[in-house]
């Protein structure tokens, strides 16, 4: 039996990227497995509900298509989140250009929110999730990244295209809003 270091057993993102660049396609699969769900949660937190998987797929396709431009200044996940955020923003702008009526958008949000609530197990969780849903997209995305992904404010700022200080303020405002909503 050969000795293997932990990094060989569970290669980190940089190692997987190097393997993929070396022609190992399975490395890309491993990276998708590792990050797809995180990207999906972030995409949903930005208000993109109906086409989450499509956005996530586009995110990975674009990421691997331009992996040469990834210099490792941020984590691979943060880079993916940045691409996802840009894709969501482009879609939202496209919808605005298409003159989608405001009432229709509101209706979509309600239905998608209902669908998501159906995936939440308990009544308590549904109440908590409903409180999160009252946040603005910026607050919601930052709060989600902080609580579920454990990203630092610096990483969050990179992902959402803001500043570290603004991310901190958004997080604490979100926390206050959720507590007030729950205490109602």
């Amino acid at each position: 039996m050969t000795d293997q270091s932990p990094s060989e057993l569970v290669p980190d993102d940089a190692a997987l990227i190097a393997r993929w660049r070396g022609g190992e396609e399975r490395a890309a699969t491993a990276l998708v497995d590792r990050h797809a769900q995180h990207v999906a949660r972030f995409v949903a937190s930005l208000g993109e509900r109906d086409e989450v998987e499509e956005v996530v797929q586009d995110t990975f396709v674009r990421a691997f298509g331009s992996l040469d431009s990834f210099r490792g200044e941020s984590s691979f996940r943060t880079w993916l989140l940045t691409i996802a955020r840009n894709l969501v923003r482009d879609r939202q702008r496209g919808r605005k250009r298409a003159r989608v009526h405001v009432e229709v958008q509101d209706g979509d949000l309600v239905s998608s929110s209902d669908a998501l609530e159906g995936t939440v197990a308990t009544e308590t969780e549904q109440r908590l999730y409903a409180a999160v849903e009252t946040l603005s997209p910026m607050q919601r995305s930052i709060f989600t990244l902080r609580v579920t992904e454990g990203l630092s404010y610096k990483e969050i700022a990179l992902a959402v295209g803001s500043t570290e200080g603004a991310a901190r303020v958004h997080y604490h405002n979100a926390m206050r809003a959720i507590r007030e909503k729950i205490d109602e």
Partner: protein
Amino acid sequence: MSECTNGELRDLLPELVNGTLDAEMRERVEAHVASCEECTAELALLRSLRPALMRGPMVDARKIAAAVHAQTSAQPRRDATRPRISTPLRIAIAAAALFAVSAIGYAVVRRGGGSEKVAVVRAGDTIPRDVAHETVTAPAPAPAPVVVAPRTSPVHAPPQQVAVAPPHGAAPIAAAAASDGALDNLSDLSDDDVRTLTASLDGLSSVPDADPSAEIDPLGASLDDNSAGGT
């Protein structure tokens, strides 16, 4: 409920929930939480919220990976057959190539003509009377193949059938004979006229190709027009 007075440690509650703190820092945060009502409540809320937020939408990672493979496996084939060069870059490369060709041509002509220091005359060409006589004010460059002769061999020719081609530098002008013609009156040019002619010829930005092809005739014509603009 008392408010938290340690914002630094309170800021680390999400890391505590996510289990990303090292042992020392985790102990510090937990000790603070134990003595802070607000952080206790906030930590409880975070621990309740996280499972709800973690559920989120489910995506098919295998399908996404397949799409990535399909895209990236096609990309090298495309790169191998057609390198990605943007249109502005292509234009820049074309401009650089054109400039290089022009510069090389200019250098070749200058080198070839510099040693002789001659005036060039071609038989059959016409020359304005003021050029043939003393009132030379502008060059009449000849873009076509030329016949050169040492400046020490002036030959007389009828004034209407000779032209003076540009010499370079401060070389003295001499008349050059065409195969069947001779110069007339060029030897009468004064030193001032020679200097004027030389200076104006030196002002030319480029020298026409010694053997211009048909493709560059329009450009050559425009250059001639420009160079003649001062007359």
